[in-house]
């Protein structure tokens, strides 16, 4: 597997910085909890062995005919040979979605409480070298934001930070969870990976879901994209979901940022990672996100290369058929047309009223910080609610109880 980079990410500055000495991305840093787990090895071996060219139309037909989708079937569904069968794949995905979720489509919104970051991820708008406006909400500002969001009727919130332990420590995130508890039924986190005791603390504060994007499962490529910061440590990030479950979280989310590397291999790895974790922890609720690369502030050329809408649909449908019970979130990185169609087929969760900057629900300009990426669907909660209903689906604000 090559480490050829998606050229759209690179700027002259990044090319210079890439030449500098960097720490070993496979060695844990002090303080990072090490789990006794063989999941990473299994996932990486399987991904490395995946050869998309080996699959034929017959393999895809067999996968579609199978009652239960095996790992081999999943791999066939992700191969180029499956593209001519996309309509059938989408129909099968829809069937599985309806069987497991009925007409329910879940709604939520992300809330960015801070955008300080200590990592240098060259494709991300929050990276520590990107000259953007940084901000961090204080508890009063968080509360105000949450009030505004709760007024829209939403009952699920996803709390996000940039990845800075210094500027947004675990206690700070815990405070956000405690405030969120007053206004929301469901609290998810998308923050930097941490140790299981820290996850346990945040669970106590009210959070029950943790999402960590691995970005790419190709560790060599990963190394070239995450030039500095704790995020650079590939295995610590990989094992975040397992630590979260050990910390008592009910559910965990997985994602590869499609377009960073070979998206088919990354999708195989994402699915298998989730599969193995659910097998080891059968009570864990599994979720997928399917983000594609988007332009960022100070680099508007970034694009997801060969992951077109067709391929995106292929990946989302393959996740659904492989793990019919998993929640699948469709990002505001995608436009209205794509999102509305994907909830008909395979996605079960959709964000609305989204802002990916800091303090955007506030009037106080000082509290505001810049966005992580460009969004493509700016519809309000009301508009998304109506769009879901118009498709004969039922918007659901929460189906959850904290026990």
């Amino acid at each position, binding site marked *: 597997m090559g480490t050829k980079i998606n050229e759209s990410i690179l700027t002259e500055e990044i090319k210079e910085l890439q030449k500098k000495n960097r720490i070993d991305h496979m060695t844990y840093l002090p303080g990072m909890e090490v789990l006794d787990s063989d999941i990473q090895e299994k996932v990486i071996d399987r991904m490395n062995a995946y050869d998309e060219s080996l699959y034929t139309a017959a393999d895809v037909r067999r996968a579609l005919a199978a009652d239960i989708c095996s790992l081999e079937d999943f791999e066939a569904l992700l191969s180029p040979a499956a593209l001519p069968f996309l309509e059938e794949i989408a129909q099968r995905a829809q069937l599985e979605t*309806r*069987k*497991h*979720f*009925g*007409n*329910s489509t879940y709604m939520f919104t992300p809330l960015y409480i801070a955008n300080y970051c200590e990592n240098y991820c060259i494709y991300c708008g929050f990276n520590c070298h990107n000259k953007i406006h940084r901000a961090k909400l204080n508890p009063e500002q968080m509360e105000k934001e949450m009030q505004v969001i709760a007024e829209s*009727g939403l*009952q699920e919130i996803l709390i996000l930070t940039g990845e800075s332990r210094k500027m947004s420590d675990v206690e700070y995130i815990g405070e956000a969870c405690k405030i969120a508890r007053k206004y929301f*039924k469901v609290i998810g986190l998308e923050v930097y990976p941490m140790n299981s005791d820290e996850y346990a603390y945040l669970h106590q504060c009210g959070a029950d879901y943790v999402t960590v994007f691995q970005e790419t499962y190709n560790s060599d490529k990963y190394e070239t994209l995450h030039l500095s910061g704790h995020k650079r440590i590939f295995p610590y990030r990989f094992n975040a979901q397992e630590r979260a479950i050990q910390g008592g979280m009910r559910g965990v989310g997985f994602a590869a940022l499609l377009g960073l590397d070979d998206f088919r291999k990354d999708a195989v790895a994402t699915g298998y990672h989730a599969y193995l974790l*659910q097998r080891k922890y*059968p*009570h*864990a*609720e*599994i979720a997928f996100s399917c983000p594609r690369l988007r332009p960022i502030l100070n680099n508007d050329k970034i694009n997801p290369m060969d992951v077109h809408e067709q391929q995106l649909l292929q990946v989302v449908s393959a996740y659904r058929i492989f*793990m019919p*019970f998993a929640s699948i979130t469709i990002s505001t990185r995608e436009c209205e047309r794509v999102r509305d169609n994907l909830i008909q087929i395979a996605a079960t969760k959709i964000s609305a009223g989204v802002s990916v900057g800091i303090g955007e629900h506030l009037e106080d300009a000082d509290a505001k910080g810049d966005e992580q990426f460009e969004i493509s669907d700016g519809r309000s909660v009301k508009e998304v609610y109506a769009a879901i*209903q118009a498709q*004969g*689906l*039922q*918007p*659901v*604000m*929460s*189906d*959850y*109880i904290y*026990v």
Partner: protein
Amino acid sequence: METFKTEKVTQATDKLILGGHEFDSRFILGSGKYSLDLIQAAVEHAGAQIITLALRRANEGGNANILDYIPKNVTLLPNTSGARTAEEAVRIARLSREVGYGDFVKIEVIRDTKYLLPDNYETIKATEILAKEGFVVMPYMYPDLNVARDLAAAGAACVMPLGAPIGSNKGICTKDFIQILIDELDLPVIVDAGIGSPSQACQAMEMGASAVMANTAIATAGNVPMMAEAFKKAIEAGRTAYLSGLGRIITKGASASSPLTGFLKEQEMI
């Protein structure tokens, strides 16, 4: 208590009895997975008198409260979905009673997110605690006779064995084991989960099940009220067939008059 099979039962006196409450309908409807505005029509066309409700969903409140869509004249059967242990199920059941959803509770303890199979061991523990607290306990379970007996001893009002995994629409994959429960227990046996079509619901009733619970099959039908009605009719037909006593079934062609006992006559002739 169920009627003994030897007693004469007419359709007029045939009631489903759960925790001392009588019901004419033997169709328990799930309320999840629907478009909310179709729930009422489903209940009406199903003729259902009991409707399940996940407390975690009822918890929702706000601008799409599922409770506003459930007709007021039906008995709510709150379930403990979301519970992974007996302790969590007990907590959810108590909360449900606190907020005024009554004494009925369907226990669901699930710590397998893939097949949503019930944890029988934890279910027995939860049943024991909640029955003592005066709940009408209806446990969702995997059809195991020993477990069913333990549930009965723990004070369950019925048992709710699964036909197949939730949402699978596979029908009664556990048929022979459910039959054993029906034959051996004095409690009502309500087939829950996996029923994908009216014919499967009918089959469960013909076997002697006391009631059938269904959700996905109706919620995802092309025409929800029509499918609810089809289930209602199938369940009634199956019940009537059971009460009337199924006829003799000749499985393989005509049978010889006495192929095995014929020799006895030969001895008499000597």
